[in-house]
């Protein structure tokens, strides 16, 4: 029985690291290869031993697909390809290919910065891994091999994020990655064909939430930054090098311009140029507004945002600084935080999620006295704000996408179990589609009924045509032929051609049946009676009485014999070929009714 199997190694009932194995029509694909930022040991990577158990990775997996550049979707990639030993192709969109190594490199540097970060990939490994990447365009059908094809669709969420359709023959799966169904300041909304896959694997981060408009959050953010700057405070915004940072930069730049503000805005990573370069390069991936205004003013060329120097942190007066890393767990953002934390006029805005074990997590959970090295205590007097700018589809958006794609089944990943449960019921009730939510390590198996294309020989078609009936799409009819399976192809040909092609000798198969007739006369007479009867009934057929006493109707042969025990009964032996099966069974039923009374 053909089937699709899905096993999440990560993102099964959690929002940790995405890594989903899909097996479709004998092809094995890994969807995303993410890292969990909350762990410092091997647990940060998915447990690949479950794949390596099936032999060599490169033999087992046909390809890896990365949906977008966030580390919980691509962070384990260099580990997987350069340390675990996967040597096959990796697919992602062009922007993801460009940005992915920057974030990997950024994370590597932070990880190495700490102690005990063994078993971590190097810069060279990131580069070697990126060389295995095959970049794809949106809506471009890419043949991974003769049978497996993939196609990317726009997903919003972050620059370059894509949904992927994976197709083998008539079976297909769509994987959404992370997506956003409403446009935001720099990206558009997700869009996909009504491709009716067997299975839609969708994220479900906000499965139970109806998100308020992002505009409100943006207004709130600007108001807070403005207030802090007005009162002469310094604002720290810890970010990761790419993604949210650019979104917030656009926000502030526009606001500064509109309000004619003078306080300096700095970007500390040294990566602004590169990041902005990519946003410019991939302008087609941004939303319509940015593209439209691009001719007059490039949104990513910032007038007010300048590169940061460490010495600026001590400058008097207000300022806004974007600094990496985003969770205040090392490096420059932490250093600036320590300097500014003691002043209540200052403010730190955390625009994203922080894992446990980081200063970001601590201050977000309300801790105000932080222990530092050497048992020193840092008192946090500065204002701490949290603004979620993460761009995921909410419950409404997910339902909308399911409706748009029309899948046979839905599988939820990248969400919490309880919320998934709620959404699962909603999908099953409202859309009447079966929904699954496997935990990590659990396999969901879906039987499929693939349609297999069959070629038909011209000879056979001509023969059908010769029977005078023109093909009619509304009136399907039976066509007899021989199905040949050869070289992974299916062809319907006439039996003669099949015999010829396969070099086989013909065997005749005849069906036989015995009909008992009450007739005390001799066998020859009975046969003659049968002949007369059939001749009168079957006017359109050629009925013959042969010299040996047997009767034929087309290929059907009827012989009369005496009954061994009852002399008053004769046995009619009827035999026919499979081509005349219909006539054969008609004749048998006819004879079973008996012969008409002969005139005496």
């Amino acid at each position, binding site marked *: 029985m053909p089937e699709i199997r899905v096993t999440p190694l990560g993102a099964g009932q959690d929002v940790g690291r995405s890594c989903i194995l899909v097996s479709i029509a004998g092809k094995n694909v890994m969807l995303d290869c993410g890292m969990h930022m909350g762990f410092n040991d091997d647990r940060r990577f998915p447990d690949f031993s479950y794949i390596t158990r099936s032999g060599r990775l490169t033999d087992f997996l046909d390809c890896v697909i990365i949906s977008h550049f966030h580390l919980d979707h691509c962070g384990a990639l260099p580990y997987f390809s350069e340390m675990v030993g996967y040597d096959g192709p990796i697919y992602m969109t062009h922007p993801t290919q460009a940005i992915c190594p920057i974030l990997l490199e950024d994370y590597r540097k932070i990880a190495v910065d700490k102690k005990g970060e063994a078993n971590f990939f190097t810069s060279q490994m990131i580069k070697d891994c990126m060389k295995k990447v095959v970049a794809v365009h949106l809506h471009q059908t890419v043949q991974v091999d003769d049978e497996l094809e993939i196609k990317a669709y726009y997903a919003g969420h972050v620059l370059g994020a894509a949904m992927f359709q994976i197709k083998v023959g008539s079976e297909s799966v769509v994987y959404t990655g992370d997506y956003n169904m409403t446009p935001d300041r720099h990206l558009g909304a997700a869009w996909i064909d009504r491709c009716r896959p067997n299975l839609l694997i969708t994220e479900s981060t906000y499965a139970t939430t109806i998100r308020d408009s992002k505009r409100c959050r943006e207004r709130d953010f600007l108001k807070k930054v403005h207030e802090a700057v007005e009162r002469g405070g310094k604002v720290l915004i810890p970010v990761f090098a790419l993604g949210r940072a650019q979104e917030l930069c656009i926000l502030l730049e526009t606001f500064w311009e509109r309000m004619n503000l003078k306080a300096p805005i700095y970007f500390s990573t040294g990566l602004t*140029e590169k990041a902005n370069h990519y946003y410019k390069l991939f302008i087609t991936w941004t939303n319509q507004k940015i593209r439209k205004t691009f001719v007059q003013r490039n949104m990513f060329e910032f007038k007010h945002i300048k590169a940061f120097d460490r010495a600026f942190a001590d400058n008097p007066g207000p300022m806004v600084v974007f600094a990496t890393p985003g969770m205040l*767990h090392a490096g420059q953002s932490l250093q600036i935080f320590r300097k500014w934390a003691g002043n209540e006029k200052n403010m730190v805005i955390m625009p994203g999620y922080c894992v446990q074990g980081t200063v970001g997590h601590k201050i977000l959970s309300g801790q105000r006295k932080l222990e530092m090295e050497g048992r020193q205590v840092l008192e946090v007097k500065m204002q701490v704000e949290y603004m979620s700018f993460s761009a995921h589809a909410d419950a409404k958006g997910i339902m909308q996408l399911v409706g748009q794609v029309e899948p046979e089944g839905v599988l939820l990943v990248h969400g919490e179990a309880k919320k998934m449960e709620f959404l699962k019921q909603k999908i099953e009730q409202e859309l009447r589609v079966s929904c699954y939510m496997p935990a990590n*390590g659990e396999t969901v198996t879906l039987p499929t009924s693939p349609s297999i294309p069959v070629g038909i020989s011209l000879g056979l078609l001509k023969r059908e045509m010769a029977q005078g009936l023109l093909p009619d799409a509304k009136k399907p009819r039976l066509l007899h032929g021989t199905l040949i399976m050869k070289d992974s192809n299916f062809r319907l040909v006439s039996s003669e051609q099949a015999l010829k092609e396969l070099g086989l000798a013909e065997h005749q198969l005849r069906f036989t049946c015995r009909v008992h007739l009450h007739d005390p006369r001799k066998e020859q007479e009975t046969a003659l009676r049968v002949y007369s009867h059939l001749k009168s009934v079957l006017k359109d057929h050629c009925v013959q009485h042969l010299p040996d006493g047997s009767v034929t109707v087309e290929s059907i042969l009827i012989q009369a014999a005496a009954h061994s025990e009852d002399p008053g009964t004769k046995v009619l032996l009827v035999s026919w070929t499979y081509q005349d099966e219909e006539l054969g069974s008609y004749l048998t039923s006819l004879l079973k009714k008996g012969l008409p009374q002969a005139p005496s």
Partner: protein
Amino acid sequence: MDPECSQLLPALCAVLADPRQPMADDTCLEKLLDWFKTITEAGSSLLLLQENPCLVELLCHVLKPQDLSSRVLSFSLRLTGVFAAQEDCFQYLQQGELLPRLFGEAGPLGGAAWTAPTVRSGWIQGLRSLAQHPSALHFLADCGAVDTIFSLQGDSSLFVASAAGQLLVHILSLSMRGPAEGPPGLQADDWPACAQKIVGHIEESLRSTAAPQITQALNVLTTTFGHCHDPWTQVLWVQLHPLVAALLEKDPVPAAHSLVDLLLSVARSPGLSSSSCGLWETLAQTLSHLSPTQAGLLALGILKLQDCPQALRAQAFAVLLQPLACVLKATAQGPGPSGLLDSTSADSVTADILLPSKAACVGLLCRTLAHLELLLPLPQRPCPWPQAPLLGAAVTLLQLCGGSGSPASDEGRQLCTLLLGCVRVQRAALDFLGTLSQETGPPELVTQVFAVLLEYLRSPDSSPTVLKKAFQATFRWLLSSPRTPGCSDLDSHALLFLRELLPVLQKRLCSPCWEVRDSGLEFLTQMTRRWGGQAGFRHALLASEVPRLTEQLLRDPESYVRASAVTAMGQLSSQGLCVPPASPEHPGGQQKSLLGELLHILSTDSEGFPRRAVMQVFTQWLRDSHADVVGDTEQFVAGVLQVAGQDLDWEVRAQGLELALVFLEQTLGPPRSHCPYAVTPPVAAPASPLTQALQPLCRVRLFEFAFRALFDCDRPVAQKSCDLLLLLRAKMASSSSLQEPRSSPDVASVEAALQRWRAGDQAQPLGDLEPEVVLAVLRSMDLEGLRGALAESSDHVEKSPQSLLQDMLATVGILGENEADCY
């Protein structure tokens, strides 16, 4: 447990037991468990429970019917296991009937919570930790746990199923370890009831007709023989061997992959004497029963075994060679043996797999090539090694894939259709070809090797990954090309090849794909490093456009390529290969020096990779006394340190310290032995030479750079600087300068500046430093203390158990706000 944590624990347990308080971060419970494991490994669990009664209360509480999260329940099961691993603590928990209530039928096992895989997983892991002593075995038997584990082997969760198998192995080996009075006898009938039950279950599974059950049994046995090497394992194998062998009689052989794993695990087990158990016969049978696709891994495993009958090795090697023999036969230009395998009895089986379907053909060939590649470097590889036919096969495969093969037979043409343009086979064959360069081959074949490599390097159809592998294989073959003994020069054939290769490389350096340009540059660097001093190579390279193109790639839009170009140019320059002779059109034209160009990259490139590459090149140049550096070393070092010190990339700054160290060693001589037992004569150098020797270091402002780095916000930089300064101080220790008086106004001002730097204010420079001041400052600094502090991770405080407990407690109640956020 320290008192702070002890104080926080009751509140935390209360939070965990409260179903209304969900845990925000799924890593917290894992980290909490890690912490408890560390505590119990170091001390008594019983004492821990007695001192912290809240823990037992938590374990009791999770048993109450309530809507507790499955994660907390799973955590509690695992935690109980961690405590009960110590026998006295086990008894303590038993007294309270806690263990049967948690792990028995009455516990989560019978409830709705069991549907969550994480609870089932917690149950298994809890038992795994708990099963450490004979009392645990009794407990497992009493609560019927073993039967549950049997059923969990077929769990819908891979993680649970796998853990269940591992647990069975653990219980089996624990029960066979026996009580204190000695292990059980070697007769299987005398084995403990628990062991007999498990073995009975395995036997039953092996007799089953269901493939999953057979797989489970085989996996349990594989782990058993892999981990336990006690004499009883031999008894076990003798008992189970007939059942395993019976699997081979089925068609197709069920669970072939697991069967292979088991047989190899048994063969590798030192506890088993293979000859007496009929193992070799079974291995031989298995080799002949399995399809070529399945048998490859077994064949490789057999060939890796240390002692194994020659006949079996020959059979295994034949299995590995079969697909390639088939390829050679199908593509042979004329009759006659291909040289790989003479007997071709299995030919048709392999051909049946190779020819009808592309997927099967590609799969089998890739596996075969990978297996042979692994085998080649091993000392126990078959001897004689059929190097020539294997080379022939690799070349043929590459030709078939590349479209240059023209086989005469039908089968050959069919293969050609299947393999044409197949990147997977190309990659595997190029890797294999590269590995084959460890041995040489007949000259005509080596010529073919170079020809096919050149074909791939030239072909516009070669994908970037294939090209990279082609470059790598080419380099390996150039390395191995026949040469005069004792001379590393390229021979004349290789030089001829090089003349054809360089135009191709030239073209590849202009590829629109950055991957290709980068692989080309990496290849050039490797070649230059190896043969840069050789006249033939130099001549060919200088006659080509390659150096000029490389120089242009310093301005490539892709930073990876710029970095590789920097490395390549550094290498070329070291060998005197990057300065093309002044052309007649531009006599005496202003040639911008490479040093200037690299300095420009260091100070202006927006990305870290090229800047890091420049620092590496500069360090190497300094080490090798490169001509551009020797002219004015001090100016060079001063300039580089000044730029590197301002770099935003900590790895560039760290590399700057590496350069500083080289300069320091060149100025002061190599470091003293760090071995504390080394006998070093107490040669007290006079003070003046040291201060004199420090002059150049002061002039290049090395100390300002190092002191600034010492307080760098990135730990590795500070650590490296600390090491450098400690090294310098060790040098001082050998001189009498230690006794020099300190406390001059200069010293005080430097120390004050350093204090400010330490506090984060690095705006003010130190200015010109005198050696005496440096020495005094160095003496007064607590560098050892600083090194100790730096050895801690930058987040060690946040990672501490106390911090974890605080975080978990602090999260309570604020979850609604930041609920389930992520990227």
